[in-house]
């Protein structure tokens, strides 16, 4: 505590540990969606005809465009990480922005898709739906539930990416003036050494964080890749 600079120097970030933690978290996300995929499987098995019929009403073109958008955003995410690995902060930031923009476009498309459906009186508990078969009811209930929760994950992902952009944009080399250190830490610590130590560790940490954010983004993408065929391609 008394010599903060030295302890920072000692603590090597555990890249593998962070990755393990992130992957475990992703498992829990998959299982969260797993519960809903289970419901989908049971109800579709029971109401295959109704599901087929209901699926005809979804807009295949918008769905397909959104799939392409999310897949592309995963590519830009990987490129952003790759650029940071090469210490090219500027390009890393560009690709990160591209990812964020693609995510936003996805949400806008989704918004139009949803409002189109709601405009036609198709939403959970609506009078229009109550008049239709129970299979269609279940299809749309699950459709709004799963794409809605997926949408929330996209928003969460975008917020994370926003923080990442701020992190990448901040210069890695922070010069710590000797006057800012406590008297204890000043002993034996030249300005150059402190700067150097900060430089290395900070970069490493940023890379780990960006990679983990990327993993989360890919998860959001992967879930959509399952949602797309299950709702749009079964007719």
């Amino acid at each position: 505590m008394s010599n903060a600079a030295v302890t920072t120097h000692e603590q090597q970030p555990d890249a593998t540990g962070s990755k393990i933690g992130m992957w475990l978290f992703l498992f829990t996300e998959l299982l969260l969606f797993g519960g809903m995929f289970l419901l989908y499987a049971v109800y579709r098995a029971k109401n295959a005809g109704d599901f087929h019929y209901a699926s005809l009403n979804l807009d295949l073109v918008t769905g397909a465009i959104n799939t392409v958008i999310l897949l592309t955003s995963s590519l830009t995410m990987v490129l952003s990480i790759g650029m940071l690995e090469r210490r090219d902060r500027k390009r890393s930031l560009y690709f990160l922005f591209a990812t964020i923009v693609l995510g936003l476009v996805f949400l806008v498309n989704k918004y139009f898709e949803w409002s189109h459906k709601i405009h036609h009186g198709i939403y959970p508990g609506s009078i229009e739906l109550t008049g239709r078969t129970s299979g269609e009811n279940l299809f749309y209930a699950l459709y709004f539930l799963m794409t809605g929760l997926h949408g929330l994950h996209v928003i969460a992902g975008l917020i994370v990416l926003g923080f990442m952009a701020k992190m990448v944009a901040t210069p890695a080399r922070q010069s710590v003036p000797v006057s800012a250190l406590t008297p204890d830490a000043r002993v034996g610590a030249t300005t150059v050494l402190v700067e150097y130590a900060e430089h290395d560790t900070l970069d490493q940490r940023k890379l780990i964080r960006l990679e983990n954010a990327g993993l989360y983004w890919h998860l959001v993408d992967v879930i959509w890749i399952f949602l797309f065929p299950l709702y749009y391609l079964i007719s």
Partner: protein
Amino acid sequence: MNYLEHQGRYKGIAGWIFSTDHKRIGILYLISIMTFFSVGVLIGVVMRLKMLWPGEHLYSAQAYNAFFTVHGVIQIFLFIIPGIPAVFGNFLLPLQIGAKDVAFPRLNLLSWWFYVAGALLALTALFSGNGPPDTGWSFYVPYSLRTNTNVTLAVFAAFILGFSSILTGLNFITTIHRMRCPGMGWFRMPLFTWSLYATAWIQILATPILGITLLLIMAERILNLGLFDPARGGDPLLYQHLFWIYSHPAVYIMILPAMGVISEVIPTFTRKNIYGYKAIAFSSLAIAFVGYLVWAHHMFTSGMSDFARALFSLLTFLVAIPSAVKTFNWIATMYKGSIKIEPPMLFAMTFIFLFAIGGLTGLLNGALATDINVHETYYVVGHFHYTMFGGTGVGLFAALLYWFPKMTGRMYNKRLIVTSWVLFFVGFNLLYFTMMVMGWLGMPRRYYSYLPQYHIYHVVATVGSWLLAGGIFLFLGTFLLALKKGAKADANPWGAATLEWKTPSPPPHENFDEIPTVTHGPYHYEGGHPA
């Protein structure tokens, strides 16, 4: 300078609630969890009090429904699930594997904050809206969707608590994989650590299913999706499946760490290496794995196919095997050991006794023919409390007795503990054994009143509940007393062999003055002394 005196970034109370030190977080959990446990006990006593006489008196049937729901929600989600892992896991896991802290200290603090947030939301649910939930802790549809009481907020609280549990599990797995000290191979880890490892996997693999189940209740109540409404094509049975896919493995989240505690206490007080170390370690993993596949034994009377019921019955019997392996190994450890009955050992032996009753009576629930007879009766309530309270609760008490000197540097009054144990033990068996008897005779659970022939059993059980509650509060009071007046405890008051006893009591801020190197197994005794 030990962790209690260590001056971090903040002073006073902020130095605790914003501390990322795993030991301080463990203590935070201890205080919060024991507070809620006491509240849950009091609600239980109030419920039993009503049962002294049949008919309507003391409070309304609606209030009784709320009491058994709130008692269940508090004791399960706020006490017994986080219980041992969050308190003792946090405090001891890094100490037992020779690490300075857990892998993600800030995430660890966040999980305590989630716990507090969930607890506060749960409390808000009790005192706001149209009154506390009255569905039972399992929130079964369709009633949980139709009741006007504050179910939405209560399930949201449980959802947040689930987050806390997941983050703890994730943290522990990463810590065990990455932060063991030099020489600490997988088979040199203490068995408590092994049990935390198995528990953490269930926390990660099962809790998300609870998360989505609770979200579905909220979505149904707010958006009216109709996913579980038969009139709109939904299936209420699917809710039960989703609920128990989590909630059955959850009982292993509760019991496995307690078994880990017993595996620590018994070698220490018999001065012997544990019998069948690997068998105990692997049986934890086996319980975690098989326990994931038995959930539908809660639904034998719900209307499943005979094939499904027979299959789940078989799997349920299988999960008894690793539990029995542990029990026999504990007894084999004691055989020809130099047994010293100190308070932790007393409670560890109580665990074996009560858990054996709970486990064996569980087989009757696992068998189809008998389960249909005793389903939804007091028999199930009695059995459940034998395993969860007699098992996990007593395990947690044993852990508190065993590690309290390490956590605080103080020793408690052993005589008072033994007195509280007598009250506890007598009260416990009067209460829960009587419950099993009257359940066997046909008394249904969750009923506000009863027929005259059950009167005597209810009286005995209620008297038992007074002794039990008296024992519990004397037990807890002894620790409060020890904080003020307890004698100083040295680094290793029990003569234990695992790593946490090789550092001072209470441990220094960074756990060890020097990161230890391990050269042998965790329960290594030579001539009756830890090596």
